[in-house]
């Protein structure tokens, strides 16, 4: 009977996600199409960077989502360790690889931008290094959650890692203010408003909305899969 109780919340999530996923998926496709058109066709080149500025439309939202995704992992970790929320572990398993991909996209696009603009693919400044650490924290979370035969032990170990790693998030955000870095300081989320012209800011925000929707859809689909997988495991064990 205990296993039935554990499935109670995931089952409710599943009913909910199956209702909203078609709508969310459609919205993602639409906003992404508009965002890509604005970013690649509509928006003007930058006065310094020329066309290379377009890399930012992927790079910056990926960085935001990689950080937001990690904050989600930490929140789910707390929900699992403190409140033993049964859905939290499954959603954390679903979210970690998605966040890792966004972190990787952020690092790769940044590197491709850095070569022509800065004159180097990579430097070990505070912003780049802390972002690389975020990527490794994601990889550690993925590895740790799969490191035990008992899935629940893996979930708890990964949850602790997620909570420890959350210290890195303010370090990433404020690295460009606390230390001098090669990476430029914040342009959008800063006191005194963004220092990006609306013609470039609008496509950036639409792309951020599109990738946020994509993130939510991917995490929901993957959470459904994790629920199914846990059910299959339980059924196999019961036989």
């Amino acid at each position, binding site marked *: 009977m205990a296993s039935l109780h554990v499935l109670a919340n995931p089952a409710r999530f599943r009913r909910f996600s199956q209702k909203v996923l078609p709508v969310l998926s459609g919205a993602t496709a639409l906003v992404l199409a508009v965002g890509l058109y604005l970013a690649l066709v509509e928006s003007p080149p930058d006065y310094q960077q020329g066309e290379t500025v377009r890399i930012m439309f992927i790079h910056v939202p990926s960085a935001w989502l990689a950080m937001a995704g990690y904050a989600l992992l930490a929140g789910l970790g707390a929900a699992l360790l403190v409140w033993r929320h049964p859905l939290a572990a499954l959603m954390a398993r679903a979210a970690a690889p998605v966040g890792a991909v966004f972190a990787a996209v952020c690092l790769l696009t940044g590197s491709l931008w850095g070569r022509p603009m800065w004159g180097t693919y990579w430097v070990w400044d505070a912003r780049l290094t802390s972002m690389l650490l975020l990527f490794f924290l994601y990889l550690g979370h993925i590895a740790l959650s799969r490191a035990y035969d008992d899935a629940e032990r893996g979930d708890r170990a990964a949850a602790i890692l997620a909570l420890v790693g*959350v210290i890195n998030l303010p370090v990433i955000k404020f690295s460009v203010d606390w230390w*001098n*870095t090669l990476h430029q300081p914040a342009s959008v989320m800063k006191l005194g408003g963004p220092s990006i012209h609306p013609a470039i800011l609008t496509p950036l925000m639409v792309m951020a909305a599109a990738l946020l929707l994509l993130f939510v859809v991917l995490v929901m689909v993957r959470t459904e899969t994790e629920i199914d997988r846990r059910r299959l495991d339980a059924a196999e064990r019961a036989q």
Partner: protein
Amino acid sequence: MTPRMSPKRRRLWLLVGSLGVLGAAVALVLTVLNDNIVFFYSPTQVAEKHPGPERRFRLGGLVEQGSVNKNGQEVRFTVTDLQKTVPVVYRGLLPDLFREGQGVIAEGTLGPDGTFTARDVLAKHDENYMPPEVAKALKESGRWQEGAGKK
């Protein structure tokens, strides 16, 4: 006896407490390592620290207006933080964004005559993004602030 906390509350406080301690530890470590995490020194910091001629470090600041002097492969320019300046000599290719009034980071050594010999030059991009027409209009209306975003 003190009233017992529920397990959930106890776990929550344990979590908050451990994160607080961990956060404090990280803050202390980062404060102590401050000098090593800094990516470059400004001309003012160079003047204060007097790095020896053998020590390689990075010098960062703005390329002073009108200071760039190209002579074949050799480029001479002045790096400023609007208070102190350091003359730089460099042989090699410059990045796309290298221009007067823009941020630059040079890696190399400071000679006894106060000239910085750069072995590597990186351009630093500021946090301002705008279309070329807007930049032109700002310059024409006199509202342009050179290196406004530079710290």
